[in-house]
């Protein structure tokens, strides 16, 4: 495997799958005539495809018997509906999926010392990074209700508990967003933002659940900001950290979505 730039860009795979436009395809044809490494990659891709074609595919449980599967689903659905009802009735948190019997369910708990440390860290990082943000993103509009489409105060009496919880979630997530936004993308190595990647992975499921719960409740502004946050967290979690462009792309996403300002507005509205 070599350092051919065309190969490193992933273009050969796109060529192999027949998804390149005609003009780009002609360029790659010309490149292949001179690059043995890319030709070798094409051969390997063909071998991989042959293996995939031969791979055993199961379309149904053993013996094609769906009866056990359907019976289990029929048992699970009423139980799941009961759990969902109980969850929503007892608190205002979004429904956390429960899993079928026999699978592991983990409960996450923070120690008091951990909470104090996290709060102190959030405060410290938030202050420092906010200062950095002001100089890095001068074009960001001023924080205000108008910067969130529709404004989160459109339903001032609607579910204040949920809005407050959403605000707390944005407060937790800000550590990641500000941390990513404040890094110097030209100099940062993948190790420099490992911490933010880990936090993003931890926050992703909760963000998705909050977003779905907000959509459920018709709280479209909160849902919209949650969706933007979810996109940033997905990018941060799944992007290859060794990719030198990854961080600047995520920063661009944060800037284009004006995420910091929107999270501030929603957090303030819920407090």
């Amino acid at each position: 495997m070599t350092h051919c730039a065309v190969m490193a860009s992933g273009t050969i795979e796109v060529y192999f799958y027949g998804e390149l436009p005609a003009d780009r395809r002609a360029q790659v044809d010309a490149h292949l005539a001179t690059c043995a490494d890319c030709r070798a990659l094409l051969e390997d891709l063909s071998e991989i495809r042959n293996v995939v074609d031969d791979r055993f595919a199961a379309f149904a449980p053993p013996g094609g018997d769906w009866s056990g599967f359907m019976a289990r689903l029929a048992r699970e659905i009423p139980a799941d509906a009961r759990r969902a009802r109980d969850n929503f009735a007892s608190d205002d948190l979004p429904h956390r999926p429960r899993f079928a019997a026999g699978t592991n369910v983990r409960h996450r708990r923070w120690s008091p010392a951990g909470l104090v440390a996290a709060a102190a860290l959030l405060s410290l990082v938030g202050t420092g990074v906010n200062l950095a943000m002001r100089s890095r993103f001068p074009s960001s509009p001023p924080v205000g209700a108008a910067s969130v489409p529709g404004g989160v105060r459109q339903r001032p009496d609607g579910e204040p508990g949920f809005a407050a919880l959403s605000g707390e979630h944005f407060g937790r997530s800000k550590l990641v967003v500000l941390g990513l936004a404040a890094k110097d993308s030209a100099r940062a190595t993948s190790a420099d933002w490992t911490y933010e990647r880990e936090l993003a992975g931890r926050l992703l499921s909760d963000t998705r659940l909050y977003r779905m719960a907000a959509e459920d409740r018709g709280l479209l502004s909160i849902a919209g900001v949650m969706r933007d946050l979810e996109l940033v967290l997905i990018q941060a979690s799944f992007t290859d950290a060794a990719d030198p462009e990854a961080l600047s792309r995520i920063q661009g996403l944060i800037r284009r979505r004006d995420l910091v300002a929107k999270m501030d507005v929603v957090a303030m509205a819920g407090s």
Partner: protein
Amino acid sequence: MPAFDAGLLARAASGDASAFQRLVEQHRSMVYRMAYQFAGNHHDAEDIAQEVFLKVYRSLDRFRQDSQLSSWLYRIVMNACIDHRRRDGVAGAPIRGPEQEERVLNTPEASPGPEARAYAGELNEVLQCEIRRLPPGQRVVFLMRHYEGLKLSEIARALGLAEGTVKRQLHAAVHRLRRALTVARVTAGERV
């Protein structure tokens, strides 16, 4: 993927159990196939498929009619696959802290590597094992491209990712598989 029946979906969302059952029957083969390709065994495939249909059931009333139904279902399947992997942890060990979750998503499956497989069988055996060892994010994208035949743009839309991210995940997956192929060829050559 079979076309969704909007009327059936509406009836299922309004609580019609037989409509929901019909919906499951229409799509269970596709869901099971993807789950099996991801997990590599019937036991986990059934768990994942169950989770998919529970999630569909929970979110029937949230589905927007203007959305792509196939994208919606693919995304649920993808999330269920990754959640299943996250719950099980690496090599079946329970995940002890939230900080391990991200590591798990990007960690290859623990199983014999290409050298051991090359001695045990053919090169395609090596590749098949390596596909199962891909980190979950790469594996989902690889499966959707190769088994479902979806274009990169369709995968990106279905998973809610940037097309560039999908391309990089696929490139990383192919890179891993090629490395395994190279190692296996060398090992097999040494054996001869």
